[in-house]
């Protein structure tokens, strides 16, 4: 239906009011000579019918007469006729179409997808090296495979990349390497050492030789399961140690806190810095760019003119809003301050914990230093698996005694 409407618009049509006593007979007679009204509707004054321009000039051929008034003229023919007088408008339209056609030959934005942990600056450099940058002609783009190879060769930690060109926008999609956790080669000799200090609760040795006793205090780096076997009379050998080491650990955190709550209070004073962007150029629409507020938040927003989903004709504005604030302090009670401090210290300790840790005991010590300052010490005891593999770097075998060989001989 929409296409038919466009077809009628291009062809041009007139909307007529057919009135008089013989309007139905008139319609029958025009149908007989092959004139087909586009649409018909009834109104109090008569019948409203739409006829194509070519059909309209043929209605004189009808045998029966009725009153016909032109209500509206629609279509490209009539629009063009009206625009003939408005030369500046036509020139503007043509300029716009030309700008549109010219603008669509360039890449105006480059965006990245799939970047999470890899170095974005390195990726941007690689993309530029691949010949892709804002404001470049689309036809100067290298082939997809060529760009892919350059990006892959100059960016670390990515395993796949491709450049998609959508309208005037280039989207660089990458897939990052998912590195497997470091696993020691089971053939490489290693010890199990303590990651942090603690008191050994128990050691389950599956491979190697346990050298630490229960309730023994260990420091970080101390060997708990050794992979080196030394014998008095035989040559020693090394194995890949394995086992579980559970130890009691203690985490202590201390902090000094004020008995007040700080928050931002906005004064309501704002300043907007608007910059006009056109293609690669920027035109600041302000005279003084200095913000004279003591402390302020700034929010940057970009508004790009877009036609459709992906077409960006290169015109846009950037608005930076600076909002002044003052830091206000509100007194809080001793209990609330202590609670907030303990929560913060808990968070700090939780960052240090090893996976699978079990809390066994905790102790909080809150002391008032002065009227508005408190000192909080949080002690938490856990059972943690502190064992970690450490490669045996130096081979320290004890040479077997030569006496045995001599005795044998």
């Amino acid at each position, binding site marked *: 239906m929409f296409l038919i409407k466009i077809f009628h618009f291009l062809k041009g049509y007139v909307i007529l009011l057919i009135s008089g006593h013989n*309007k*139905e*007979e008139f*319609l*029958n007679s025009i*149908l*007989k000579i*092959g004139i*087909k*009204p586009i*649409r*018909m*509707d*009834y109104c109090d004054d008569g*019948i409203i019918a739409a006829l194509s321009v070519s059909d309209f000039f043929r209605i004189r051929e009808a045998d029966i007469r009725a009153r016909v008034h032109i209500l509206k003229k629609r279509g490209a023919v009539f629009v063009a006729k009206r625009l003939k007088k408005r030369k500046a408008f036509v020139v503007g339209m043509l300029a716009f179409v030309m700008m549109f056609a010219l603008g669509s030959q360039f890449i105006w934005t480059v965006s990245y997808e799939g970047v999470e942990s890899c170095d974005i600056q390195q990726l941007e450099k690689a993309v530029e090296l691949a010949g892709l940058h804002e404001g470049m002609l689309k036809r100067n783009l290298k082939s997809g495979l060529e760009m892919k190879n350059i990006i892959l060769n100059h960016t670390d930690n990515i395993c796949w990349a491709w450049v998609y060109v959508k309208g005037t926008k280039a989207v660089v999609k990458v897939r990052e390497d998912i590195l497997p956790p470091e696993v020691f080669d089971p053939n490489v000799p290693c010890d199990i050492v303590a990651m942090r200090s603690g008191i050994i609760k128990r050691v389950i040795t599956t491979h190697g030789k346990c050298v630490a006793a229960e309730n023994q205090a260990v420091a970080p780096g101390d060997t708990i399961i050794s992979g080196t076997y030394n014998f008095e009379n035989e040559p020693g050998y090394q194995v890949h140690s394995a086992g579980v080491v559970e130890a009691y650990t203690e985490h202590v955190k201390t902090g000094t806190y004020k008995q007040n709550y700080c928050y931002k209070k906005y004064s309501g004073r704002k300043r907007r810095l608007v910059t006009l962007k056109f293609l690669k150029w920027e035109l600041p629409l302000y005279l003084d760019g200095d913000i004279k507020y003591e402390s302020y938040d700034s929010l940057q927003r970009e508004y790009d003119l877009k036609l459709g989903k992906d077409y960006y004709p290169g015109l846009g504005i950037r608005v930076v809003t600076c909002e002044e604030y003052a830091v206000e302090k509100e007194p809080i009670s001793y209990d609330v301050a202590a609670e907030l401090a303990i929560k913060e210290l808990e968070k700090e300790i939780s960052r240090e914990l090893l996976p699978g840790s079990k809390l066994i005991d905790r102790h909080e010590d809150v002391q008032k230093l002065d009227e508005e300052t408190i000192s909080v010490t949080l002690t938490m005891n856990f059972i943690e698996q502190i064992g970690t593999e450490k490669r045996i770097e130096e081979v320290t075998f004890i040479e077997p005694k030569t006496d045995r060989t001599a005795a044998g001989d």
Partner: protein
Amino acid sequence: MDIARAISDSMEIPCEVTLDIPKITLVGNMRVHIENYLALVEYKKENIKLKYKGGIIEVCGQDFDIRTIGEGNIVVCGKIDAVKLI
């Protein structure tokens, strides 16, 4: 007429072709498609009368507008209450 009908029945030819009678197709109560009519007799917002070989077809309802009209076929849209053959 009867002979023509008998022939069309025996040869399984559609009646509207051999007998020159109208074919009326209703789509719910919102659209009616009439083929093989002879002339438009009356067109108003509430009723449309069409002449056919054996009499008049009257379509009654509300808010009628003619979507398509040609020689021998017409599509009328609106709220159709009744289609009468007078």
